[in-house]
């Protein structure tokens, strides 16, 4: 556990990291971002907390069970969204043209419309949930390993 200054600053900073990560996830369909990148940004915040507090402290709030549920749910949402279009083909983008994320962007340079992409933004969100849970579990497990502990079973 590091000093009180570091812990306080980390506590404040995590909010900004979270917002930035969510921004990257939400703009995945029009910028070079997406579920994995945004999730990785959020997990960098988790790593910061891991350094500021110890892995034992963090283990109390980041439960392995919760992470496991989050990860499976994220992956399941992704697969269900892919299954939604199976009437025509797997991964078929059913939402294009509908009121939900349904705008069709013009070809060529454009100002960028976030309300596009059909199921892609939703899939990005699902991947984001999965990556946040999965990578946090990985860094937490490695940190606990190196301090000689086991992840709870």
């Amino acid at each position, binding site marked *: 556990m590091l000093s009180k200054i570091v812990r306080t600053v980390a506590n404040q900073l995590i909010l900004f990291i979270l917002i930035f990560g969510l921004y990257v996830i939400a703009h995945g369909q029009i910028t070079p971002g997406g579920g994995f990148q945004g999730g990785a940004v959020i997990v960098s915040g988790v790593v910061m907390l891991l350094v500021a507090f110890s892995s034992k402290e963090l283990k109390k709030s980041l439960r392995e069970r919760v992470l496991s*549920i989050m*990860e*499976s749910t994220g992956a*399941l949402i992704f*697969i269900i969204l892919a299954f939604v279009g199976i009437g*025509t*083909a*797997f*991964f078929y983008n059913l939402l294009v043209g509908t009121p939900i994320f349904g705008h069709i962007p013009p070809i060529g340079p454009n100002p960028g419309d976030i309300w596009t992409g059909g199921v892609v933004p939703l899939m990005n969100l699902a991947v984001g949930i999965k990556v946040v849970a999965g990578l946090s579990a990985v860094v937490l497990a490695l940190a606990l390993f190196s301090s000689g502990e086991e992840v709870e079973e």
Partner: protein
Amino acid sequence: MASLIAQSPILIIAIPLAAAFLIPLIGMVSQKARNALVVVSLVFVAFLVFALARDISINGIHIYTLGATSPDLTIPTGFMVPVRIILEVDGMSVFFSIIWSIVSLAAAIYSLSHIASETGQTRFYTLLMLMVMGGFGLMYTGDLFNLFVFLEIASISGAALIAYRTKFADTQEGGFKYIVVSAIASLMVLFAIGLLYAQYNSLNIAYLAQVIQYTTLDKIALALFLIAFAMKTGMVPLHLWFPDAYSVAPASITGMLVITSHACMYAAFRICFTLYGGVINAPVVGWIIIAFGLLTMFVGVTMAVYQKDVMRFMSYHAISQLGYMWIGVGVGLAVLGNPQLLATFGRDAMSGGIFHILNHAMYKPLLFFTGGALFHYTGTRDLTKMGGLAHKMKWTTILYMIGTLSISGIPPLNGFSSKILIYESVYQFHPILTITGIIVSILTLASFTKAFHSAFMGAELPEYKRGKEVPRSMIIGMLILAAGIIFVTLFPSLVVDWAIHPAADALIDQSAYINAVTGAIP
């Protein structure tokens, strides 16, 4: 039903994936429901695979385009090249997926009691389903990059499963060796994909096969593909990791790893025959494969005779048997440019090699499962500590005998029928191949007799007097494979006509594979 079959290529991949992520959620509620989910989803996938196989035997190659307005729309209007992720299932792919579905089902049922005393079973089944999904994807994918992705999925989950029993030191070492070897082999595959993409701007196998030139870069890419996949299958001299990883994994996983090794063999065939089929310098590549195959056969079996660890000994036999397949298909490749020789013996040699894959995929997992049963009963893999186990393990003994007779090619059993196809056709190409094959077969029988004698025969040893036959689900898992052996034994011609010849023809007939994708221009 028709729409189910039309969608089946993706369902076969997506159902194990969905099940893999449902398992952690259901596993928190009930263990029985979780086990039921594993078995039911695998049974359903096996059903789909058989339905798809029947459809392919009637209607030919099956195409599935992900995300398109119609599953067979590979080239959308306004495009000249295939753009989307395409699954392409022909006779060869479906043949391998039949094997994979049967063995993964048997392995899952076998695992139910084999790992019943371990912790973290939910994760075991999650990884198992991911591995199943990776294997199916590897067999069905129509583009090179997804080949790499599915290869990595199968490797990562496989390595985690090998290292699953973390209380033993050797499992960790085996898992580490497997993941290092797989990671490097996969990266080289990716490098080769990059080399091809740089020249032809496409990742689709069918399109690439149409435009490929066989330049110097293509030759380097071919070598990288061939050796990387050969490393994953365990070809001598790249086999060194093979017994290390296979001997320490839980027995059910070892049985499945044998099939992932066959899947990598499938990828190597796909690259040589379909991707490079039109331009390849067939005799040279064929002879490279045959030379490595001879080495694989001989070194594998001589090392196997020497072993004292039951799983290690069987792993070396798996290596040696892989040599037969390399030789059979290698001879087919060597005469690929010569239609007359191909018709005389080339097609038969390839059929023999592919038939041997089917037989090997039945008896080798069965033998690994019996090895796992021995481990379950005695708690050791060391053959020097075993003896007289036939008194207590009657089922295991019978099943081991079926596997042994089959692997050594004793006539009524299926191992013989594929070996005779290989011997007779390969003899036309070069007699030394057949002679080596027969010597290897003799040594195989000799070493399995040795293991049989030291493990099962003799008086009952005092330390193994107590204890019961292994649990029922392990026996059922082994019986599924034994039933497969008996079926192929009784109806070899049926199997050859329905599964083996279509698979061999699918490899030879490169243009059908290309036309299925690029011929669909509206």
